């Protein structure tokens, strides 16, 4: 019997779905996103899939054994400010925590904006002051209750907040992760007063040190809850109605899946649901084809997203930025710069700049002929010969080279006194170097050399630029996955179920001592990890997984004392012994010196273990990708040749079509491979090979 693994990913412009059949064949479907009712866009792609399978929608859905989904609902709700109104409860004396913002008026701004003192102001706080209440209570840094909770006051304050318009509650008290007794009691009181109102506790959602981030995150989480619940219920209901049997699974920012019914409680944990898909897909594919160290690059219309996989593990971060606010929940680290096919080129004070302003999807680049007049990266690509005006998106859209030339001539070439071709090459050089700079930054920040990595290139525009930004970085190999145009959705299909639990419990070793385990008790650490693991186990068991089928990873965020920045160290053996604790510290020092240079470790200060994290994951579903059995005989000759402008002159490039590619195909640059949904460029002195899964692998001569 047919059975399908299906995933969908709602993006800004398109909703993508991936269907993997029982033979491991991957199908890709796209439909326009329906902003008012995103579930409709998903259903539309599923109709297309059913058609392809020659089934009715119901029949198709009845054959789906696993359905996972990535969504921008949380991000959109934040950007559009459509959250529920949050009443925030804080410790007396600290109710201004989120408006004070630790004094950082620069939060969420780039350097150029920060340098503009005249316009440098804070964003409005995530909860307005009239919806924040202080209550009398205090817990100290050791978790001791210093001031008992004034329960009568709590009752008065929550009534006041409801009268002021609060629809949900967030509670974030000082040191609640050391002692949550007051937060829990406040929830009980709210439930007595308003039984149907949602309450989010900081000690549950984010039991980490740092009250500013914690208060912002817990407030965002509380505000998103109702909206996310509605969206989850709506999509689940619709899919069930159409015949879907299994539970809907949702991609979380941490790169793992969770059941849709659990998501509203941790609504802020799906903010990166969409963008992390591409990293997870690359991790999955990398494991299949034996590549461990990967820089994932996703170049779309407006932005360029970069993730890192080291030793097969996606790199995580503790904070995600949405607008100017930060959500402090663990997520796969995806860094972004405003550079995409739609980025606009402009001359300012005699110099050429590209982005971050973008022509977006509407009107889009000038060559789209939809009324855009300003030159974009796509226009430059067309003028330079990298794009085929008659075969863009497999010929579904015609590009107008004259409009592209005109835009570049008017806004770049004439003001700078250069030819249109040179101007176009300038645009490409600048955007490629912006992308290379971002890759350099994110790799170097982790203490690694980009040239030791393979680039995975996807997104509509990535494969036509990767050959040059990879070369700029001295990278020798670029993989363009078969699923390049729907890579994020593919990642959502391939992800594991995942539960992450963490807690701060600062513990220090004294300065000058290297007998770390004397101060850092392995019994205590083991107990912390066991408590966390109990929670992750419960969460995964509820999905139907057995604990023995799950992998458990344990991490400690550490730092040298008196430092703020932490490094995450993985615990390889468990339970810990004193000797293992010492080894972890040594490992921390080693990682630290890799990142910051030999001799940079501040050993004399002693070390501090701050936050402990358990990541537990396991697969509820499996699929095997279809492989071509053997190398194809011949790929045939190029369908055409076409001149490409590079380094100030025209060069002939061979042009191939996607359908010519088979396992073992080999192409020498300069060549252009036109796929139905993207264009791959093979540069001079580069070559491309097709592997058994259909991925195109560029080899760069470095």
């Amino acid at each position: 019997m047919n059975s399908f693994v299906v995933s969908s990913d709602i993006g800004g412009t398109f909703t993508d779905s991936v269907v993997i059949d029982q033979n491991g064949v991957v199908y890709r479907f796209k439909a326009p996103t329906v902003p008012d009712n995103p579930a409709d866009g998903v259903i539309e792609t599923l109709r297309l899939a059913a058609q392809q399978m020659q089934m009715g929608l119901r029949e198709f859905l009845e054959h789906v054994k696993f359905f996972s989904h990535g969504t921008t609902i949380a991000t959109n709700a934040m950007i559009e400010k459509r959250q529920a109104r949050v009443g925030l409860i804080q410790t007396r004396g600290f109710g201004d925590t989120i408006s004070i913002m630790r004094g950082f008026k620069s939060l969420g701004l780039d350097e150029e904006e920060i340098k503009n003192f005249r316009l440098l102001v804070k964003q409005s706080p995530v909860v307005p002051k009239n919806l924040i209440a202080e209550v009398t209570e205090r817990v100290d840094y050791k978790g001791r209750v210093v001031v008992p909770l004034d329960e009568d006051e709590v009752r008065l304050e929550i009534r006041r907040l409801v009268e002021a318009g609060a629809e949900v509650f967030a509670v974030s008290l000082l040191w609640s992760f050391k002692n949550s007794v007051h937060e829990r009691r406040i929830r009980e009181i709210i439930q007595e007063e308003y039984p149907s109102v949602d309450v989010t506790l900081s000690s549950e959602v984010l039991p980490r040190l740092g009250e500013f981030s914690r208060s912002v995150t817990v407030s965002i989480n509380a505000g998103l809850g109702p909206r996310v619940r509605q969206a989850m219920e709506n999509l689940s209901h619709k899919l069930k109605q159409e015949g879907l049997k299994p539970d809907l699974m949702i991609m979380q920012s941490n790169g793992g899946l969770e059941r849709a019914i659990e998501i509203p409680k941790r609504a802020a944990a799906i903010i990166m649901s969409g963008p992390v898909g591409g990293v997870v897909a690359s991790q999955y594919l990398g494991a299949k084809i034996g590549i461990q160290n990967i820089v994932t690059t996703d170049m779309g219309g407006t932005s360029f997203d970069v993730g890192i996989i080291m030793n097969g593990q996606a790199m995580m971060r503790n904070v995600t930025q949405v607008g100017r606010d930060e959500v402090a929940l663990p997520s796969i680290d995806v860094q972004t710069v405003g550079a995409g096919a739609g980025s606009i080129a402009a001359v300012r004070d005699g110099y050429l700049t590209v982005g971050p302003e973008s022509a977006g999807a509407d009107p889009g680049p000038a060559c789209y002929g939809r009324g855009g007049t300003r030159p974009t990266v796509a226009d430059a690509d067309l003028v330079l010969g990298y794009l085929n005006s008659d075969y863009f998106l497999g010929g579904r859209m015609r590009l107008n080279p004259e409009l592209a030339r005109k835009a570049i001539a008017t806004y770049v070439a004439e003001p700078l006194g250069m030819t249109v071709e040179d101007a176009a090459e300038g645009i490409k050089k600048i955007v490629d170097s912006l992308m290379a700079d971002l890759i350099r930054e994110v790799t170097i920040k982790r203490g690694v050399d980009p040239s030791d990595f393979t680039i995975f290139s996807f997104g509509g525009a990535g494969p036509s630029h990767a050959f040059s930004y990879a070369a700029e970085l001295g990278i020798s190999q670029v993989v363009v996955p078969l699923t390049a145009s729907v890579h994020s959705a593919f990642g959502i299909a391939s992800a594991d179920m995942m539960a992450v639990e963490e807690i701060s419990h600062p513990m220090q070793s004294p300065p000058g001592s290297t007998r770390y385990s004397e101060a850092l008790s392995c019994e205590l650490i083991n107990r912390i990890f066991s408590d966390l693991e109990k929670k992750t186990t419960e969460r995964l068991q509820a999905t139907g997984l057995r604990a023995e089928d799950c992998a458990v990873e344990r991490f400690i965020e550490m730092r040298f004392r008196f430092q703020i920045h932490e490094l995450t160290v993985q615990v390889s053996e468990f339970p810990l012994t004193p000797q293992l604790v010492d080894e972890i510290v040594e490992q921390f020092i080693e990682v630290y010196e890799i990142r910051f240079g030999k001799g940079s470790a501040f050993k004399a200060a002693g070390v501090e273990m701050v936050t402990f994290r358990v990541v537990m994951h396991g697969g509820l579903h499996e699929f095997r990708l279809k492989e071509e059995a053997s190398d194809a005989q011949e790929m045939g000759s190029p369908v055409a040749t076409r001149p490409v402008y590079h380094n100030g002159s025209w060069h002939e490039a061979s042009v191939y079509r996607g359908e010519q590619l088979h396992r073992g195909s080999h192409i020498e640059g300069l060549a252009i491979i036109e796929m139905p949904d993207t264009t791959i460029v093979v540069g001079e002195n580069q070559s491309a090979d097709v592997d058994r899964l259909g991925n195109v692998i560029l080899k760069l001569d470095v």
Partner: protein
Amino acid sequence: MANARKIDPITFEVVRHRLWSINQEGSQTVIHVSGSPVVHATDYNFGIYTREGEMAVIGIYLLVPIYTGAMAIRESISRWSVIEPGDVFIINDPYLAAEHQNDVQFCAPFFYKGELVAWTGCMAHQVDLGGSDPGSWCPTATDVYQEGLRIPPGKIVSAGKVNQELWDIIIANSRMPFTVSNDFTAFLAAHRVAQERLTELCDKYGADTVTQVMQQSIEDSERKFRSLLMELPDGEFYHESYLDRPAADNSTEVLAIRCKMTKSQDRLVFDFNGSSPQVTGYGNATRAGTVGAVATLMLCVFGSSISWNHGLMRPVEVIADDRLCVTATLPAPVSGGAAGANWVAMNAAAGCLSKMLSFHETYAQYAFGPGDGSWQLAQFGGLNQYGEPYAAMYLDSLLWGGPAFAFRDGVDSGGAMVILGGGTQDVEQQEVMQPLMYLWRREVPNSGGAGRHRGGNGIEFALTPIDTDEVIGTLATHGVALPNRTGIFGGYPGSCARYEVARVPNLFEKLAQGKVIHRLADLSESYRVLPSVTSNYRFYPGDIVNTVLQNGGGYGDPLDRPVDRVVRDVLTGAVTSDWAARVYGVIVAGGAADAAATERQRQEIRRQRLAAMIPPKVRPNPGSVNIKPGPDARSWGDSLIVEWKANGIDLFCLHCKTFLGTTRADWKDVVGIIRSAGNQFGPLVVADNPVWMEQYICPHCAASLWVDVITSDFAGLSDFSLQTSEVSQVLS
């Protein structure tokens, strides 16, 4: 260098972006490797300099040292005949090139293929370099020898080899040797990283190109700045600011910092001669700190439209004789010089700039009053809760309110100009490191100066010892007896600085019974306001110290503030309803304004102003009351319409358009004056003997035109005297 070959615009953009990203990487390295909480709170910076020592790329953290870094490099170049690859220079001598001794700078020449191409420079405030007080901020020192170690320019690394003796001498003089040593390691790591990247950049584009991109960026900024200056009127502008310091007899001594700014064509000259002489105690700044402060102001005023680099300083000159409080020399104590007279000088210079900019329709938007008032040192040390020595400077003091502009309110709690990209740490982070528990860290209502646009409110934070027997504190600032953050164009001053203490026996037992403290002033028996400078103050369990910050001044007459804005301020708690009525004339009841009562109240305030007014010195003759401004007249901020005539300047009130009179001297001659104490302007504004407040008002409509702090030896120069020919030129 002006005729250097032009780089093609594409290479320029690519290399410029790389230089930025290299600078940021250097900056990030310092913060990651440093073990100092002060650095983490961004009291540091990193920059790339040209081979001559001009600022080419500037980081966004503490700004003053970026310029002293340029001075440090030039000092090193002039003193050392041999500068070779692998050298790193150290300097913290405030008399030569630093704000104060804590600000240790490392500058490293960058060589490519044996040739000097550029410099990298970084600075971080060191937590302790010795001296009489923990933390090396020694506010009661009477000469420099009682303060932290002074390090003349020298090679801390020579041709790649660390000068271990020098390194050891320095850290042997610190109470926190490990932290200092680690910061030095961070400096070296940052230089190494940045220079590796610069090498790669030169590999790809050639050292010539990299040099030229730096030069060209500086020239571009210089050119733009000069042409901006050409749009502004030539003339002299004057502003006087004050620094209050404790005198021997417990009274307040006031230092005057007098700035006369001359703008002619595309040049700006700031002349501080006439300022008070240096003193044998707290308050001095050195020339390095003062020029660095002026450079900071240039970045923040003009750097919004012009790229940050040395081009913004090339048209600027700072003049001041030696041995003034802004140019202190040996043996004057200067450890407080990071935020002493040089900040006040920055304020005086900002005043001059605002007075000039406000004659121009567009650039009037650039004007703001004193940006930063005083650094309120809250430095604590002793043994922490783990029994280990510590020294901690609380960067919470950075969370003051910003100045108001013509088009917006000041930023609440975090408006600092000297650090644009920084802030402080979480309460929880502080409490896990130091044996001090916060009772509150909150915004203070009415603390920003009132105005059509309100100055930013700032915070107060209260600390009490926990799990320790004793905490030693150094508390020092100015702006206690007078506001440094005056408003402009009729805006009121922001609140003054204050340290207050109280003692509650068995504090923790009382807290456990739910008896919480809401305000220290409620603890009347033990409540005390400390003098502006306190050294070695010992706190014992039950003692509480509350630090209340000095905040931003307003812009324009508060009676012009739209009523709904005032209502919003009352609802968010930024302004209390009694002060809304008192200074804004807005009566708020039940969450909304009472329109009729508000109208009455605003009229009443105007009436009171006129009643308190000392009439103008010069009155227009009765026949001239109907004079209207001519076509060449121009407005000046919110306050005046000014028209240059052959016999002087005709002045009109911008609010009621009434002709005020003609004068050849000071515009203030033709308006009314109200002399008063500080608390007329806000509950936390102090203007005690020997200073008072003067408010200049329109004698007809009673609009507030300017509010200033005044001393008896106010030099009394006119705010502006424009060159008539220039005015007409600019106008045409």
